[in-house]
């Protein structure tokens, strides 16, 4: 056996090992159960769904879709809360964007005070369709906030996209409860 050939082989081993390691579980080491993957396959964003659910300690332990739905709703709430705080801050620091920012404040207020509580109560109570309403409404409101920035660049694009995408995933998860 010649040395160069062996060197190639070991290099190959290293590459494959690294590849397998990186392509395996999410970075935090949590595992997507078949409940999570099966549920997330029926949502518009499989990866976002899986990563959100596995990042929550309840996710891999969840015995049913209802728990998964509540996790997503909590995630939407968290993202919407920070977005709302950013909007409030921007209203002070970017007065030239007052118009669309005020609309955004209204939309996120609806998300936080009406639509998320609706979704939580409905999913807990077993009347999922109202939970779907709450999530679809939240997605719609995040989109409306983003659309309000017409001639100027939106400072909230990333946050709006996340809230909208997560809420859409939430609606699709809740749909599976019906």
């Amino acid at each position, binding site marked *: 056996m010649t040395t160069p050939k062996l060197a190639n082989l070991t290099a190959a*081993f*290293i590459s494959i090992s690294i590849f397998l390691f990186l392509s395996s579980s999410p970075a935090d080491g949590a595992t997507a159960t078949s409940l999570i993957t099966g549920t997330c396959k029926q949502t518009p964003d499989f990866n976002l769904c899986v990563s959100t659910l596995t990042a929550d300690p309840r996710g891999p332990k969840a015995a049913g879709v209802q728990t998964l739905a509540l996790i997503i709703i909590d995630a939407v709430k968290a993202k919407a809360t920070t977005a709302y705080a950013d909007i409030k801050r921007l209203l002070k620091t970017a007065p030239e964007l007052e118009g669309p920012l005020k609309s955004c404040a209204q939309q996120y207020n609806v998300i936080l005070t009406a639509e998320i509580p609706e979704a939580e109560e409905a999913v807990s*109570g077993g009347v999922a369709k109202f939970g779907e309403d709450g999530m*679809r409404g939240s997605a719609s409101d995040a989109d409306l906030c983003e659309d309000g920035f017409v001639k100027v660049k939106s400072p909230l694009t990333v946050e709006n996209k996340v809230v909208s995408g997560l809420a859409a995933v939430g609606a699709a998860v809740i749909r*599976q409860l019906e």
Partner: protein
Amino acid sequence: MGDHNQPFLSVSGDPECAPVHDDSVVDDALHRPQGSSKSKLLLAVFSGIFVVCLILAGGYDKSGVIKIHQLEGGDEMGVGPIEMPAGSATTRPSLSRGKSAGVSEKANLSPQQLLGGGEGSGDGLSEDFPWNNSMLSWQRTAFHFQPEKNWMNDPNGPLFYKGWYHFFYQYNPNAAVWGDIVWGHAVSRDLIHWLHLPLAMVADQWYDVQGVWTGSATILPDGKVMMLYTGSTNESVQVQNLAYPADHDDPLLLDWVKHPGNPVLVPPPGIHHKDFRDPTTAWQTSEGKWRITIGSKVNKTGIALIYDTDDFVNFELKDGFLHGVPGTGMWECVDFYPVAVAGGDGLDTSANGAGVRHVVKASLDDDRHDYYAIGTYDEEAGKWYPDNPAIDVGIGIRYDYGIFYASKTFFDQSKQRRILWGWIGEWDSEAADVRKGWASLQGMPRTVVLDTKTGSNLLQWPVEESESLRLRSKEFKNVVAKPGAVVPIKLEAATQLDIVAELELDKEAVDRVVESDEEFKCSSSSSKGAAHRGALGPFGLLVLSEETLSEQTPVYFYVVKGKNATLRTYFCADQSRSSLANDVNKQIYGSSVPVLKGEKFRVRMLVDHSIIESFAQGGRSVITSRVYPTKAIYGAARLFLFNNATEAGVTASIKVWQMNSAFIRPFPNL
């Protein structure tokens, strides 16, 4: 089913790599006699690392156990198609914004269905629609039941008692979205002029603290009222509770007592604690017992459970179900009632015998529509069989082909008629609902009778008291609309109307046109709604339309001449251009409607601001629409007759009444 906690495989608590031989391989390598080549050492070390990485890749979990078996979750997983909400991150921004899709009573929208918006909407994409208070406040209705503010859903416990019609409803006292549900209450002498009363029941017991949900009233022979309703307990279990008036001499039934022994029913074995709700009015059996039904499901089969009782406190679950239909999912708001074969008057809920058919109705949670079927009730067996299993409950006829859910009938003993209430939700955005401060209406109460001409469907018609709202009328006789014509129907105002129209197609054209094998559906995705032109349709009315037709809501007939020159008729409503706003429903919907030999095309429409109720062929097919124009409001709203058929002219005779307000308000001096 249910959220049973299924433990994972045994948790060893050891978070380290399980397989044992890694170290020995490495040890082997390290202790290898110096005489072997260095390359073999390297190979061994990297093999070891490789194996370790494989194990890490292979589903190593926090509990230290390699997951070989993946356990199924406790709840069933949905198996329906993925519904992509329009406007989700993956489909914007090149499509028209439209509403972020399918919610409860709100329609599922595909990207194609969101297109529209008419002229003048610009690109319709780049900004929020600027709803102003004028547009929003116009949306409130003048003569449909709605509370002064906030959210409403299902009708509850309707009854006629000591001279008053009573109406209760699911209500959120705190917001314009669903939640914190309690029972609202209102009374009326005539089903039209409603007076609001204080809340009848609130969520103040452990057995209904998470929601005082839907229920029904039974009037006993001695006049006493029993109200059974669903409570969501402190642990979110659905149970049935009994309540009754605190004072049976109070015609307003202001105060209600909850039976101290509640709940009177809990989910039976095999029924999930979240699939057990909406008890019906009771009817008497030949044994003198009272019988009720409650909707539920087993896997994907929607069912109606049966219970017998003597006292509304102790119940006996009967074997089997009243009926069930596979694939229909959860049956909400089940209704069960007799209709007379001869038509005419309605029947008491306990009526039975010759000349009586029975209707089973369910609200399907899965698609948010109300379905009914007509059949035979076998009282002894406690079973009901549909006349035509092909159009069984949930797979056949709907009360309404627009927005109409959680409906419930009651027998009005004062006028011997069966009356249908239905919840009409919103088809705009929740954000708009919060902004305008309210959401939902009730439909105009309708009488329900068997259609004696077809024998296979019901007829629904606005209660005759609706005619008391009629003010001035204008008649338009023999208005001709040639193919492609849009004919203005000149009125002093066009937002509160009662329209009765009879239309005829040009007979010579009908005889002349060739047979078509067109497979028509109001809602087909290639259909352009009322803009799609066939030989014999569409033709009908454009309601809540603006002078230049930038906003229009067509309600119309579409006729197809099929094999052997048989005519098939469809009755549709098209919202694709009803509003320039981009955050409202823009769907096209409807159904086929039987038109018998010699019948003209007939339609009655109640237009009341943001609600349109359309009744075809005397109520054989009904469509309720919620529309939110931005321009065709107040004095700018118009009515047109239109004919988009290519071959046939249309002649119409139309009578239009201006409709008064019902002045729905709080009960005075309470």
